């Protein structure tokens, strides 16, 4: 049962990931990316990482995707730029590199044997267990995260809400002495 679910989800994830990089319309790519994220969230649930799965949906499929769409709007993309210029040689090289990577990965997985994840609590991915570690052992990183977010807030506002250039001239006159 679980293995079937895994295979279906993984196949959808891979297929939609492939669609992300092959669609000509960037909007379509973004929508396929959402599908990929949802599938990955399902895989997280199957691994017992419920909290990460929820975050995957809330933060990635939700908020980050909004940002992606806005970036696309900012970029002023028209039509299907950039696809005509890719020579067959480059595509061939790309496939060669991917094939090589696959070869290495298969060889690696064969030698790696089974990666035991012994001694891990099966409940460790639940929201409750996550809250336990986050707010006690990882208390300091939790607070540092707020500093990081504060840096991001001030940074983005500082970059976008700048002093009007007219004020600059005034400053120069007022301050040069």
């Amino acid at each position, binding site marked *: 049962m679980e293995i079937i679910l895994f295979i279906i989800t993984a196949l959808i994830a891979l297929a939609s990931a492939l669609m992300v990089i092959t669609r000509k319309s960037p909007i379509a790519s973004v929508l396929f990316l959402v599908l990929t994220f949802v599938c990955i969230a399902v895989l997280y*649930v199957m691994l017992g990482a419920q909290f990460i799965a929820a975050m995957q949906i809330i933060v990635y499929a*939700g908020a980050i995707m909004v940002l992606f769409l806005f970036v696309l709007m900012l970029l002023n993309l028209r039509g299907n730029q950039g696809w005509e210029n890719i020579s067959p040689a480059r595509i061939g090289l790309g496939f060669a590199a991917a094939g090589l990577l696959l070869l290495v990965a298969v060889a690696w997985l064969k030698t790696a044997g089974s990666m035991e994840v012994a001694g891990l609590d099966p409940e460790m991915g639940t*929201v*409750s267990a996550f809250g336990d570690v986050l707010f006690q052992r990882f208390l300091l990183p939790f607070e540092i995260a707020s500093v990081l*977010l504060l840096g991001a807030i001030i940074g*983005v*506002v500082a970059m976008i809400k700048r002093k009007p250039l007219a004020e600059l001239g005034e400053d120069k006159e007022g301050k040069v002495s």
Partner: protein
Amino acid sequence: MSNYIPVLLFLVAVLGLTGLMMAMVIFLGPKRSNPDKELPFETGSAPSPGDARERYPVHFYLVAILFIVFDIEIAFMYPWAVKFRQLGLFGLVEMLVFAAILMFGWFYIIKRGALKWK
């Protein structure tokens, strides 16, 4: 895995209900077309002239990125709410410190007028 059977049922219900409604619209509803109905739907306002792929002002991006920051803040509150009783006062203080640092950012956004739409 059996914990997720309700989720599966929910999913089936959602898909079934949506499919049913779509089918009802397609097979039962009358189809009468007029020019107004053929216009693109843009949240009730008149459709924008020309190409829809205009450049957006960078302001949209500012709002989106500020949304993400506070979205992540709320995401942290989710496990905190689950553990709130066990953590007690200690957890409350922790979250207050976290929120206070971000509230400084919020105060800065408001004071700087970053959300004002000129």
